[in-house]
């Protein structure tokens, strides 16, 4: 029983079963809404490999990453500032809380008004909504540095800047990464939604357009691609996190 439980193949069982069921149950399907998996995969190959690769997949990913990186950098910088300067934090608390509470998708009309339907509006929106999780986690993280560490860095007469960069930021890193992971999810959602609401290209655009023009195979292939992309991005993030926080996990394991 135990060897069965520990077997590394056990988690693979269900996905294989699902795909197999999907394949056989949908084979020869005549339903308009649920084409066979084979047709979906053919549409996938025709649409994304590589007809729309440069024209749609690459712009989607580039916008997402650009907005995300801007948000992470700004979130960490502002978070460090607000986290260490209490009166500043108090001053901007209401504005930050309110801005964070706005459902980011509601800002799409404003972004289109101000920046048009090009890349800028999308990148700004992605950056805006990804900013807050990173900001709040950074504020929390740099504020709750272990008091022993603070004392040591003070007795070594590190300057404010040195303390911020070499003590507070690194010790807040696990928490900042948690915020960045939330943000990555936001970035992905906002990326798709902005493409579905006002766009000329992108994976979300192609997928919704396929639905509206009743090319259902392509719609399914777009959904499949978005699902895979979302999971891949998340997996990539976890990988990077584990590498950069190795010291943290090791010290936790040591205790």
């Amino acid at each position, binding site marked *: 029983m135990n060897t069965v*439980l520990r077997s590394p193949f*056990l*988690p*693979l*069982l*269900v*996905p294989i079963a*699902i795909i197999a069921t999907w394949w056989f149950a949908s084979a020869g399907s005549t339903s308009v*809404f649920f084409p066979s998996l084979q047709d979906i995969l053919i549409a996938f190959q025709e649409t994304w490999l590589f007809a729309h690769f440069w024209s749609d997949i690459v712009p989607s990913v580039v916008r997402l990453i650009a907005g995300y990186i801007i948000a992470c950098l700004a979130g960490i910088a502002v978070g460090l500032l607000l986290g260490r300067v*209490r*009166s500043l934090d*108090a*001053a*901007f*608390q*209401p*504005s930050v*809380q*309110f*801005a964070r*509470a*706005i*459902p*980011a*998708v*509601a*800002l*799409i*009309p*404003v972004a*289109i*008004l*101000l920046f048009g339907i090009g890349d800028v509006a999308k990148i700004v929106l992605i950056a805006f909504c990804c900013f807050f999780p990173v900001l709040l986690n950074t504020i929390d993280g740099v504020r709750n540095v272990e008091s022993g560490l603070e004392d040591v860095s003070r007795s070594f007469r590190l300057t404010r800047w040195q303390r911020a960069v070499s003590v507070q930021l690194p010790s807040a890193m696990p928490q900042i990464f948690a915020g960045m992971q939330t943000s990555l*999810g936001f970035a*992905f*959602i906002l990326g*798709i*939604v902005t493409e*579905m*609401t006002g766009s000329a290209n992108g994976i*979300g655009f192609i*997928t*919704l357009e*396929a*639905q509206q023009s009743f090319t*259902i195979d392509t*719609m*399914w292939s*777009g*959904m499949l691609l*978005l*699902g895979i992309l*979302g*999971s891949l*991005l*998340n997996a990539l993030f976890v990988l990077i996190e584990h590498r950069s926080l190795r010291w943290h996990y090791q010290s936790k394991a040591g205790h």
Partner: protein
Amino acid sequence: MTTTATAREGGRTQPVKSKNKEHPGSSRRADNRQRSIRRVLIPTGTTLTLLVLWEVLTRSGVLPAEVSQPTTIFAWLWGQVGEPFLWQSIGHTLQHAAVGLVIGSAIGIVLGLALGEILILRRLLQGTLEFLRPVPVIVYLPLLILLFGAVAKTAITLVAVAVVWPMLYQTMYGVRAVDPQLIDASRMFGLTARQRMKSITLPTIAPFLATGLRIAMSLALVVSVAIELIAGVPGLGWTLTQYQTAGNYPAVYGVIMIAGALSLILNQLLVRGERRMLHWHVSYRGITK
């Protein structure tokens, strides 16, 4: 904006006050004055300054004409108080979010309990769940529009799907945080599975559920606004696009403000409810730690 801010701060001052009792009178008063400056004056002052700055920048034409002045926005909002249309939009959005939240939470909690308690189920499904979790619900939208059309059912279904995830994972973490010694003890005392669920598992997972619910609530609101916006389902999101196409800019900003205020108010309600229902839990932890 300011009322919610003070409400937030109001909650926080409680424990500080009791600590202050140890101080002699005069320094307490000075402390209190300094605290009230930091807690009330600085935030309110800054917020007002930002609003004035916004007003001045738009009036003087530094910001483009598409940015409305705060006074115009508030005037528009004030004018809508007696109009039913906006209230109906708010009602639709709240309905999508609430119904989806209830359905999604129920499914998430049941799945989370099952996965937390039954090891083989967890091993079987974990990989699949980890794959599906980062897939945003927006991905399923085209299919649902196709199946149901631009109706409330589409929004509610997608809210429910989105809500399942945080509830499922929070429940599962909660179940796995149950102290195994408590389980052993309950076995020794001959508690039935149902008794064990009621007096050990549920109290342990309650705070996890509360956190999950807060995440789920803001998610529910975002998803319903997004679906209304993209698919044209009646609600705040759809209202927003209508005002946008009509070129009614103050209304666009007004609706955004409403959406933000709604999210703040709901969050505040949940935080209060959580504090009221789980006060025993926090005090319990206060003694043992």
